[in-house]
């Protein structure tokens, strides 16, 4: 149901969580649904971090970033 509402709102997940519309205007999404989306996003990102997704898809970018910081 939360996913359905994000679809209906036609906004990125983060804007939905922040209770904002496409142009950053204040929206009125359900607090419960925003909470579920935030919870789900947290789990998804934790899984991305666990499998080191960034390293997989952009090792070159990672290396350059590390070199710049050094």
């Amino acid at each position, binding site marked *: *149901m*939360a996913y359905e509402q994000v679809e209906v709102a036609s906004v990125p997940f983060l804007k939905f969580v922040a209770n904002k519309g496409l142009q950053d205007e204040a929206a009125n999404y*359900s*607090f*419960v*649904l*925003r*909470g*579920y989306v*935030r*919870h789900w996003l947290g789990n998804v990102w934790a899984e991305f971090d666990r499998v080191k997704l960034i390293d997989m898809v952009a090792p070159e970018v990672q290396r350059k970033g590390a070199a710049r910081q050094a």
Partner: protein
Amino acid sequence: MQRRTPIFIVTSSRPRVGRTLIARALTEYFCAQNRPVAAFDVNPDEFKLIDHLPAYTAAASLNDTRGEMALFDQLVLEDAVPKVVDLSHQLVDRFFQVMQQIDFATEVRRRAIAPMVLFVADPDERSRRGYAMLKERFPDLPLVPVLNEHVQRVGAYRANFPPTRLGGGPISIPALSPVVRSVVDRRNFSFVGYVQKTNDRTSELYEWMGRVFISFRELEVRLLLGEITPQLRHSA
């Protein structure tokens, strides 16, 4: 300073400990002061609070997301209307699981809302474990043990329900005699209605209400102290 909107979640780990009676009395405590109040009856099988106070109570369910929205979206409203939730022992785990998943604690801190859990104690081991679980999982939630003297031997188990940092020590609810209890349990009985009709201020029920309402007043003071204590620390 704007007062925060209080939410009182009345719950227990066991049935028949007087939870709904306390939720009823608390709802009518606000009515007696001509303050607005919204109550929620969260019971899976039978709705009792709504039977007694239909004008102030909404039935709520945690069976699906729609039901959760109907309840929690109301609870996070900063409308200065005190909320009373009569939460069945069967739904305690689900309620607090949802609360944790949607990060209710962060939202109420961000908004001007002050939740407080009133845990009606009883001697059963499940009750001790339930209280300990809430205390451990929600250290930032004011948790107050309620010792209902109607529950046999509950005083002897007071040590199972130690005071909490934000909620403080237990409050006691005096027992009602069986005759008075049978009157109070009638569907059309109202505490406020009784006070308006009676002239006898020495009656058992009148005295019971006096003691219980003073305890509720104390809970409001605890919430108020929770609001101002950080500011006092800051100014010291």
